[in-house]
């Protein structure tokens, strides 16, 4: 056996094993989505039968979604909330991350550890006090209830941005100091443009969180004119219990913008995951 054959053969075998395993994992992750797509195109009689391809695709299920719920209104609300919270998170988390990574002040690291410690407090503990706060502030059942709590940053986002800022060479900041920049200018003109991958990661993750969030809008919002898509979907489920194909179609429509956001941000997102050490 030649050297080349000996080297190549295990590689082929290993590659085959690896890709089979990856294909298996991908199938597990994608199958529920495929099932939902398939369900969204079936008629009501067929939806419970175990077939992946509908006999007669019912595209009318998608039309019905728009007839049964104020889809565009809720879509706009979800975009508005996710957009505002994402911008706020990026702005405040990057500012806090910059301070924790670069500015020197007494008690900085202790404060950071304490702040990071808030990640361990589960949502179920804070949800009632937050609800009460919103009620006292008179913000329940207003769009502000969806925007304000997440607007001013989070421990996770701050941690993410801090990790990224720490990887930027100190000389870059020192060059900016000598060029006459104030700390704000260093942050705004040098570090933030440089932190695009981390900003994308934070923005996309925040967008996903707010878009998919169900518990908080359920607690905060009564009026359907300010409801989110997730809320609309569940209300539809309540009203039209038996209409599974339409529900599936609505789910697909809600999922679509997320795929679009991820598609646009994909490259920067993956780079960001790599440089901030979030992966693995």
């Amino acid at each position, binding site marked *: 056996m030649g050297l080349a054959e000996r080297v190549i053969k295990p590689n082929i075998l290993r590659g085959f094993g690896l890709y089979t395993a990856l294909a298996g994992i991908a199938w597990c992750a994608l199958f529920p989505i495929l099932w939902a797509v398939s369900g969204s195109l079936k008629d009501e009689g067929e939806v419970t039968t175990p077939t992946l391809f509908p006999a007669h695709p019912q595209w009318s299920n998608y039309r019905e979604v728009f007839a049964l719920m104020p889809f565009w209104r809720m879509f706009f609300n979800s975009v508005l909330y996710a957009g505002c919270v994402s911008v706020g998170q990026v702005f405040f988390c990057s500012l806090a991350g910059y301070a924790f990574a670069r500015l020197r002040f007494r008690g900085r690291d202790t404060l950071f550890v304490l702040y990071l410690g808030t990640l361990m407090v589960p949502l179920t503990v804070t949800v009632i006090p937050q609800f009460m706060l919103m009620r006292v502030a008179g913000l329940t059942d207003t769009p502000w209830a969806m925007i304000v709590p997440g607007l001013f940053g989070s421990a996770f986002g701050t941690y993410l941005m801090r990790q990224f800022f720490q990887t930027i060479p100190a000389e870059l900041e*020192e060059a900016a100091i000598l060029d*006459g920049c104030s700390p704000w200018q260093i942050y705004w003109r040098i570090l933030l443009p440089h932190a695009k991958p981390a900003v994308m990661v934070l923005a996309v993750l925040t967008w996903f969180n707010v878009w998919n969030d169900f518990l908080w809008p359920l607690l905060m919002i009564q009026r359907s004119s300010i409801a989110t898509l997730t809320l609309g979907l569940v209300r539809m489920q309540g009203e039209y219990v038996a209409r599974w194909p339409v529900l599936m179609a609505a789910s697909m429509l809600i999922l679509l913008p997320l795929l679009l956001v991820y598609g646009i941000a994909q490259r920067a997102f993956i780079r960001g995951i790599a440089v901030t050490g979030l992966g693995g």
Partner: protein
Amino acid sequence: MASVTFEQATRRYPGADRPAVDHLDLSVDDSEFVVLVGPSGCGKTTSLRMVAGLETVDAGCIRIGARDVTDVEPKDRDVAMVFQNYALYPHMTVAQNMGFALKIAGLPKAEIRDRTLDAARLLDLEPYLARKPKDLSGGQRQRVAMGRAIVRRPQVFLMDEPLSNLDAKLRVQTRNQIAQLQRRLGTTTVYVTHDQVEAMTMGDRVAVLRDGVLQQCAAPRELYRNPANMFVAEFIGTPAMNLFTLPVINHSVSLGDWRVRLSREITDAAGEIDVGIRPEHFEIGGRGVEMQIDVVEELGADAYLYGRVTGPDNTFGQPIVVRADGHDPPLHGSRVRLHPQRGHLHFFGVDGHRLP
């Protein structure tokens, strides 16, 4: 332009057992090019950063011209720095990088453009003005870093090992360009390097530091000819100066068959002295120190002989390096006799200081 003066300047890092820079007294004249040189950890970069304002001065003061800048913000010191890794802003083009300081200072766009173009012309960077740093070679990045400093027309240039990331050939070329540029602009320059060849070829004067303490500051030739102590003697010159610790007997010292009579001033100082002889200051042949050659390093024009001094009973003693003519050097394994040239001997006392 302005002078730069360190007056007893000291920097002590928290937790360190000795200061990184210890009571440094050094004056760089207006338009002068001074190189700070020394081994790693000698405090040369810290000294430079103290001038820039990036490092706190714990004691003493720093002056730029007549102005005490010890507590002045870096941006108000009117200094420009070239960093070892260049520290170019990666998201900006070459032109934006060069004009950034002027933009922050609020200069009109037309002036920023003119000054950037002038500097780009000076450094042959015109074709690259629209490129980002990642699309440039190492040499081009280095020139952009220089350009960023030049555009500002500062009182002082501070350069922190700006050539260390270049390959050997480009380093020699850029070394000459920087020296020429500095002479043309006449801007006071403090330059840090660990490379003594760079220091000797570029600086009007060279300041040698060790463990945060200034050892000697002098013109390159003076440093080579009259090193103030054994550290400078060994540090300056490649290969390093040969140093032999020899007992003083009857007002003279001897090494093998070579014997030299010393002045009373030297013999009165100690019973034992160090004698320094550079590799290029031996004559091969005749009477003198006998050397067993272990290795011959042929460099073309010259050859360096590495070996040991042989004793009277054929014992091998101290290591010794000798420069020989590259055309016909002795073979390794052979023995040669060396005669140190009389006018090129250096004597150091037990404390390492030069004896008269």
